[in-house]
């Protein structure tokens, strides 16, 4: 029960996430920092990005992201620096490399396969005659019915 309470406080504690004091004055840099930090997972929380998290470590990481941006790093360099330190666990959007290709390609592959199977099955089953519209006699008859 105690770890439960602890876990709950870790994620649920009200969360002011990004603190006013941490933010950069340059709106462009700050926007980039926000963008980067929504994609990085807080290493000690339960499924939260460092942008949302209230944990001290997340605050440190947010500051680190901003320091590096101010120092002139590109977005990719900032992310790489944090991944170096904490592993790919912190990436909320996993790389499409190696085994992760399964993750990224499973759905498109399945879609193509399903469309293929669906098409073949539909073609094989007895089909209703295609819609060729009404013949002249039928059209005349419909017109009669509609008039009456």
């Amino acid at each position, binding site marked *: 029960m105690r770890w439960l309470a602890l876990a*709950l406080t870790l994620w649920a504690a009200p969360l*002011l996430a990004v603190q006013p004091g941490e933010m950069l004055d340059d709106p462009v840099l700050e926007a980039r920092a926000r963008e980067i930090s929504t994609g990085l997972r807080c290493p000690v929380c339960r499924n939260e990005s460092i942008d949302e998290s209230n944990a001290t470590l997340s605050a440190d990481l947010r500051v680190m992201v901003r320091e590096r941006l101010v120092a002139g790093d590109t977005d990719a360099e900032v992310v790489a620096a944090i991944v170096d330190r904490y592993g790919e*666990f912190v*990436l909320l959007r*996993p790389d499409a490399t190696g085994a992760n290709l399964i993750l990224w390609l499973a*759905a498109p592959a399945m879609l193509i396969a399903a469309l293929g199977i669906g098409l073949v099955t539909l073609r094989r*089953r007895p089909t209703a005659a295609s*819609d060729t519209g009404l013949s002249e006699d039928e059209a005349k008859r419909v017109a009669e019915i509609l008039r009456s």
Partner: protein
Amino acid sequence: MITELGHFALILAFGIALMQMVVPMVGAHKGWRGWMAFAEPAATSQFILVGFAFATLTWAFVTSDFSLKLVYENSHSAKPMIYKISGVWGNHEGSMLLWLLILTLFGACAAWFGGNLPAALRARVLGVQASIAVAFFAFILFTSNPFLRLAVPPFDGRDLNPLLQDPGLAFHPPFLYLGYVGLSMAFSFAVAALIEGRVDAAWGRWVRPWTLAAWVFLTIGIALGSWWAYYELGWGGFWFWDPVENASFMPWLIATALLHSAIVVEKRESLKSWTVLLAILAFGFSLLGAFIVRSGVLTSVHAFANDPERGLYILIILAVFVGGALTLYALRAGAMEAKGAFGMVSRESGIVLNNILLAVSALVVFVGTIWPLAAEMLFERTLSVGPPFFDSAFTPFMVAIAVVMPFGALLAWKRGSIGRAGRQMVLVGVLAVALGGLAFAVQTGRSALGPVGVALAVWVILGAAVDLWSRTGRGGLAGRVGRLARLPRADWGKSVAHAGMGVTIFGVAAMTAWQQEDIRVAQVGDRFAVGAYEVEFRGVENGQGPNYTTLMAEMAVYRDGAVEAVLFPEKRNYPVAQMPTTEAAIDNGFTRDLYLVIGDPQTGGGYAVRTYIKPFANWIWGGAILMALGGFISLSDRRLRVAAGAARVPAAQVPAE
């Protein structure tokens, strides 16, 4: 004493479920009417006994009987009454009892309203339903018994997690469970049909309303959860792609697919084996969701009651039921012959496409949810799959569904004409592109999300309207309007639900694309601008709630110099649970929500204040309400009168007291 009676009732119901699992099945196999007829009274008495057990547990919570371990751990005498009652299911054991109550309720409904089903099919359905109940009775009695006593009753309880002390969350689990467990009906019908080796229109006529009812409840449950996250977690997100959210979303996607394919079974006697498979998968995903939530194998923000041993037990239930049903399916699916033929361009094909897209999007969610687990076990890579993945991998499928939906809905059964549907949609398409372009022209920031969302929403909503209008036939305007009101309710339900989907798409896109945010340290008396609004920080005040202390700020929001709203965001502290919570103050509006959060006092004076302007936020849940409403309208269709029982479910699941 009364809780002991409840405990006994639960054990007795377990015994009855064991009998009901076997006797009607044997009866149906041998053709013994008496044995088959055992199922109905058994299902009714199971429900009554579990209902009684649930009522005694509720009584223990209401009277704060702390000699019960569960009450001690999850309640407090100072808690408001509504949360004492909702505390019954705000924990693992109680929520499992609620799950079981609903499961037996659905079983009883099948017994009460199943009079027009063939006797053997009904006996088998009830037998399968009882076997699911047996698994959960055993689970509750052997691993999660809510009726355990404490030798020395403590003076007061430890209180319910404050985040759960909220009206949104009080009703979120019951609706969600009505949805999850409601899908067990479709599962039982599917397995019974596989045993019989026969699926016909009568089967479809039964499965569809039950699935529809479950789907409606699931929709409401998910929407409530999302709404709660929006106002309670304090930064105004509405969906986090958390494993537990995904666990509820997968059955929803599959149930949506099932709902549509069951129509084809009912009306056209086609797609039978596919529908049976979907019915198995839908309940399978419900069980998978239960496993994810209870086992804690995937770290989640919902992990309020997890335990690996219980997780293992649910995994066994999942393996036995889904594995068993799929084996049966592999053996018997060939026996189901399609009767109705249809052309490549037809409503049926449209529904096949809908099913493919929904099933694949459920697969995206499934793979993304379990990938961290799979990657760790198989490839020794510790990684995370979060919102950025789902946003990019899932959204294309939703866009595709939105694009084809109005077309599919307009196609005729059996054989349709793309040209005719296309002509009906030309105007809507032009309007959608024009309004999307307009949105692009007036917005700042130039992201594509907003305009695309607007165009899709217009396309879907007006498409639903065109669909409805096209059903009124031809002739003069007055005659058509008159016929509009007399259309079958199923047609209205379909259009309302489809339009609801469009409304939700618009809300999601608008809120994501056009939200404005302001984070700052504000002193009392400060006035600052956020977007078109000005916020004035008027003051703070300390207060005392029934079981918490609070710091409440008063803030006025001005627009064009006039006060638009005065809001009181709070920061609460629950001393018993030793947990602080933020209570955002929200001014709900049709076109925007003003969302204010007060934070910690700062060292240099003042408070951290966050202000959000969230355009069209309420449309997200408004759309979900429309979808659920569409489901209800369709359920009330005269032609589906058999569903009357399902529609009455919510009234029955609230225990007396």
